[in-house]
C-alpha cells in the first residue's frame, strides 16, 4: 500500500519537474511559501493562544488571500489553458494579480492593529 503511494508521489514529482515550465515553477515556489507561512501562523495560534486575535486573523487571511490570487495567476498564465482565457494575456493576468493583492493588503494592514 505504502509502496504504491510512494511510487505515485515519486512519479508525480518526476512528471512535475519535467513538464512544468520554469515560469510556473516560480509561481509554485511562491505558493509553497505562502502555504508554509499560513500553516505556521495557525500552529502558533493553536499552541500559544489567540491573543491578539485581530492580528492573527489579518495574518491568516493575508496568507489565504494571497494563495488564492497566486493560484488564479498560475491558472491564467499557463499556456495550456490559453483556450479558456482568450481575452486575458499573461501580462494582463499579472496586472490583475498585482491590483488584487494591493486591495487585499490594504485591508490586511487595516486589520492588523
Amino acid at each position, binding site marked *: 500500500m505504502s509502496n504504491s503511494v510512494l511510487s505515485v508521489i515519486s512519479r508525480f514529482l518526476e512528471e512535475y519537474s519535467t513538464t512544468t515550465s520554469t515560469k510556473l515553477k516560480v509561481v509554485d515556489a511562491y505558493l509553497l511559501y505562502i502555504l508554509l507561512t499560513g500553516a505556521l501562523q495557525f500552529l502558533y495560534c493553536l499552541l*500559544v493562544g489567540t*491573543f491578539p486575535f485581530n492580528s492573527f486573523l489579518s495574518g491568516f487571511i493575508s496568507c489565504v488571500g494571497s494563495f488564492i490570487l497566486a493560484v488564479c495567476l498560475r491558472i491564467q498564465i499557463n499556456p495550456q489553458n490559453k483556450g479558456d482565457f482568450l481575452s486575458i494575456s499573461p501580462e494582463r493576468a499579472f496586472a490583475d494579480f498585482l491590483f488584487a493583492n494591493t486591495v487585499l493588503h490594504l485591508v490586511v494592514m487595516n486589520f492588523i492593529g
Partner: protein
Amino acid sequence: MAPAGAQALTPSHYLSLSDVSRLQNLLSQPFTDLQSAYYSVVGLSKLGGIVPDHQEVCQFLKSQLDPSSVDSLFFAAETSQAISGCEIPVSNETRDILLAAVSEDSSMTQIHRAVGALSSLGLPLASQEVVGALAARINKEDNVMAIILALQTASRLSQQAELGRILEEIEDLTARLDDLGGIYLQFEEGLEATALFVAAAYALSDHVDVEPPLKEKSWDSLAEAFSVASAAAALSNNRFHVPVIVSAQGPATVSHNQPTLQLLVTDVMSQPLTSASVLVESAFAVATKSAILSQTPFTLNDGVFELNFMSSQPASGYYQFTVAVTGDSRLVASHVELKVKVSTEVSVSNMDLSVVDKDQSIGTKTTRVDYPSKAKSPFTADSHQNFAMSFQLVDVNTGQELTPHQTFVRLHNQKTGQEVVFVAEPDSKNLYKFELDAAERKSEFDSMSGTYSLYLIVGDATLENPILWNVADVVLKFVEEEAPAAVQPKTLYVPKPEIQHLFREPEKKPPTVVSNTFTALVLSPFLLLLILWFKLGANISSFSFSPSTILFHVGHAAMLGLMYVYWTHLNMFQTLKYLAIIGGVTFLAGNRMLAQKAVKRRSHV
C-alpha cells in the same frame, strides 16, 4: 405687544408709569450737541414731560446752529418748535439751501430733514415737488428706514398734495414686519425702526384722515428712548386706534375682608381712560365651569373700576373673567381675560382623637379637642393599637366643607428631632381621617419609641389662614427597638465611600521568547522561497532599463512602503489618498511596461 391672532388682542407690554418716568429721566440728561438736544427735548415733550429752562435751551440751539448744514438746521428747528418762545433766525441763503436739498438726488434722510426744517421754520415749500422727490427716492432706496422717513416727511406736507402713493407704503411696510414667535411683530432692523414706523404711520394717517391698515402693532440709548416715546404718544393720541390695557390693582384676589375687585383701565402710556365703561361679559369657575356672573358692569370710583364680587357669594377658588371695555370707537384689544382668586378662611371642627385596639375588643376612647388648644393627656399606642384621628375642615363664611390642597399630620419626636409627615385623606363625605398603625409604620419611625408631638398642617392657595396646630402628644411604643446609634440624621450630604475603579486588566501575553521564536519561524519560509527561486534559475536578466519599468518598480516599492507607514502612522483615508496617487502612477507605468513585455514576447514566439 399684541399677539398675532386676530381674535383676542391683548397688549401684554405697555409703558407703565415707571417706564414713562424712566424714559423721561433718560431724556432729561444734559445734552452736548444739537442732535442729542433734539432727541431729549422733542422726546420729553412727546412723553408729556416738561422741558426745563426753555431760555437756556434756546440759547444753546442758537449757539450750536450751523446755517449751512441741513442736519443742523433740522435739529435746531424741530427743537425750537417743541419749546415755546424760541425763534431761530432765518436768512435767504438758509432757505435756498433747504429748498435745494429737496430733490431726487439727495438721500431720503436729507429730504426728510430739509422738509422738517422748512416746515418748522415756517418757510414755504412746494409740496408736489417734495412728493415727487420722495417717490423717486423710495424707488431708489427701498429699505425700511428710508420708507419710514418718507412717511414722516409726507405728514408735514399740505393736505392738498397727492399723498396716496406714500400711503400705500404703509401697507407694504406692514407686510414686511417679522412675526417673532407669534407674539411680537417687529422689523428685523430693530426696535427703533418699528417704533418710528408706528409713529410715522399714525402721524401720516392723522394728517390725511385715512385709517391706517394696521391691525396689530408691536414694540418692546437716547435715540431708542425717543422713538419709543413718540410711538407710545402716537398710539395714545391718534384718531384711529387706541389700545387698552386692563390690569388689576394689587393681586386679583377677593375675599370677605376685601370684597371688591379693582381694575385699572389705561392706555399704553398708563393714562386712565375714565370715559370708558367696563363690563364683565362672563365669569365662570375654573374648577366647575359653572357661570357666576354675566353682563355685570363695573362702577368707576376715583379712577379705578370696581366690582363687588363677594355679593354674588362665590365659593372659594379660581374664576375666569372676561372683561369688555367700551365707550370709544377707537379702542382696540378691549376684551380681556383675567383670572381672579376668591379666598376664604378655614376652621377645623369635630377633631376627634382615639386609640383603637386592633382586634376591636376594647372600646375606643374618643377625645375631642378644640382648636387651638391641645389635648390634656398624651395618647399611648403600641404595636397592638392604632391611633386614629378624624376632623372636618369647614369654610368659616359659608359653612361648606373644604378640601384644601395640603392637609398633613406631622409627628415630631421631641428628643431626637425626628419628624414624620403623613397625609390625611378625606372620605366621600369630606370627613378627614387619619390612622396610624404603629406596627406597620415602624420603619418610618426607625422604631424609635418615645413621645411625639402631633401637629395638623392645613394650607391652600385660596386660604387666608393656614393652620399649624399642635393637637396632642402621642407616645408610641415599638417592638424590637434596635439599639439606636444615637440619632442618624439622614447622611445624605456626606461624602460617600470612595469607589475603587478597576481598570481593565490587559490580557495575559505569552512570554517574549515564545513570540520571538515564532516570528522567526514564520519568516523562515521566505528564506526557503528565495532559495527555491535561486535553484529554479529565476533571474532578472531580461530587466530592461526603460523609464516605465523603473517607474513601475519604484512605484510598486512605494506602495509597499505606504503599507508599512499605514500600519504605523496613518488612517484609512490618508492611505487611500496616497495610494490613489502612487497607484495611479504605478498603474500607468506598469501598463506601459507590460505592454512592452507583451510585444517582446510575441515577437520572440
